[in-house]
């Protein structure tokens, strides 16, 4: 992708990446006396893959939580799809097309893989209670339709074999994949991934990268991901934002960020011979 005709890459890029989808303006968040985020602004454009990186405790997960509406910032605004809000509400974020995976795999342990991914379709299940109770007509049809869609995701993520297994019993790498499936089931416009490759071996990471790129490619989903693996970050992202101690210290393309002195001091370090 990098050494073929540059003209082609640029066209690909500009065709892919659209206008601003999510704009974070001067957000500050604190808990009691602890300042998690201070005055951070960033923009994520449609169809791009944006990586948020930085040392532990930099406020990356807190930032995602603010976007989801789980944390409410004391200051600043969030603009998603043109709507400006001083704080997001979780169900509005979900309804607006924001889906998320979590650092500590927040799957529903009592349910099977299939059921977990089906919960991702919850917002689209409209059949009322009575229909559900009798399992007839619209309720039945809806259930089967969504099952069909979810099976598509299961195929895509290659997890057919484990669909009926309670997720609590799955190995960590597969759990992360199921969680991605649940997020994808919502057909999101913006996908927030919190360390999707943590704790994975090389093969699993490659698989996950492939899935992320495919999702971005095939469905045009905008992706924001928190990731520590620099190889991955530099490889797949269009845009990198660096946070440190709750503040933004760099923002640009991977190459620009990689060379930024502040980033090197705070996070990347220098290669020793």
């Amino acid at each position, binding site marked *: 992708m990098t050494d073929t005709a540059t003209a082609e890459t640029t066209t690909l890029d500009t065709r892919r990446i659209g206008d601003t989808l999510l704009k974070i303006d001067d957000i500050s968040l604190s808990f009691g006396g602890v300042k998690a985020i201070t005055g951070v602004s960033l923009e994520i454009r449609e169809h791009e893959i944006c990586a948020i990186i930085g040392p532990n405790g930099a406020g990356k997960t807190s930032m995602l939580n603010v976007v989801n509406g789980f944390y409410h910032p004391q200051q600043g605004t969030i603009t998603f799809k043109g709507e400006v809000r001083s704080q997001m509400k979780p169900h509005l974020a979900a309804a607006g097309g924001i889906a998320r995976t979590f650092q500590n795999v927040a799957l529903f342990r*009592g349910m099977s893989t299939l059921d977990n991914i089906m919960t991702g379709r*919850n917002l689209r299940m409209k059949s009322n209670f009575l229909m559900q109770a009798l399992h007839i007509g619209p309720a039945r049809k809806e259930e089967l339709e969504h099952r069909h869609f979810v099976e598509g995701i299961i195929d895509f993520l290659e997890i057919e074999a484990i669909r009926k297994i309670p997720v609590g019993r799955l190995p960590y790498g597969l759990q992360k994949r199921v969680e991605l499936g649940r997020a994808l089931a919502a057909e999101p416009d913006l996908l927030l991934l919190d360390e999707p490759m943590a704790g994975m071996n090389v093969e699993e990471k490659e698989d996950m990268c492939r899935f992320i790129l495919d999702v971005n490619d095939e469905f045009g989903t905008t992706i924001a991901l928190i990731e520590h693996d620099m190889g991955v970050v530099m490889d797949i992202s269009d845009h990198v934002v660096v946070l440190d101690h709750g503040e933004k210290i760099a923002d640009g393309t991977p190459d620009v960020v990689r060379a930024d002195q502040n980033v090197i001091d705070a996070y990347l370090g220098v290669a020793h011979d």
Partner: protein
Amino acid sequence: MLYREAGQFKSNYASDQAIFPIAQDRWFMAVALLVAFVVIPTVFDEYMLQAVMIPFLIFALATIGLNLLLGYCGQLSLGTGGFMAVGGYSAYKFAIAFPEMNMIVVFALSGLCAAFVGIMFGVPSLRIKGFYLAVATLAAQFFLQWLFNKVAWFYNYNSSGTITAPPREMFGYMITGPEATAEVRYILTLSIVVVMALVAKNLVRGHIGRSWMAIRDMDIAAEIIGIRPMQTKLSAFAISSFYCGVAGALMVFTWLGSVETEAFSINESFQVLFMVIIGGLGSILGSFLGAAFITSVPILLTNLPQAFGLEMAIDLQKHFEVMIFGSLIIFFLIVEPLGFARLWQITKEKLRLWPFPY
């Protein structure tokens, strides 16, 4: 060899999602229903029906109700007795006020009353987590029991404070009142419970059930994917109260005939809780198993020592019963929190492989 699924392929999602996907299970269910509807009323005598089967069914229904709330949605309620009381007393008032009303409608209305009361107590307390709901439901329990005791309107100002089910008939059979035979009452109760169990099963395998379980397992993640915690919990509470309400109504009309508020005390709440835990949290089948177990222990305790030639004083029996239940709760929570239902599942899994060990 008997229980193999080999060769049973599902060619569409509908058959995969059926309640009993395995053919042997379907046969088993058909036989069970046949036994329940036909064999039992013919073979069992009046005593067995009145003292064992009918209460078992009624408590199974209440257990399903509590299980929906606790086992599937993870919210603890200690007010089951109170909601059963709402069902019982509202059914009584409806039946007296509208003598021509079909009993099924009366039962449904009483369930709705209980659901409404459930929502009223739920709204303030479901916004927070943990044991707060338990305390709020205790409030419901004590307040409701007091209400039906003190406010004479509920028992039509009669001097004894008890309510008596008025005689009613359906399809030409007397279903309540002194003329109603145990067989008829049993069939009515059985039919209602079977239908409501089926509805419960449908609810838990659809998106309502999944949202309940999501809230139970990780409510924060559930909220972030768009499930509304308050509404979901409230729906579980309302539906659970509906079930308990109908169970209470059945208690008055098809089991005891005459009832006073003591029948709906906090002891009932604990009994049903035990049935849920021992039967299996989050299992409809488990609700039946737990109810069967708990309703049969007192009978065993009465009859077993006699079988050995020993006599046990009544109150000693009660103490033993209480001790046994307490220890069983702890035992099941430690060893198999999914209760008898899980043990049943494991048995089935072993049967699948039988005669091979694995």
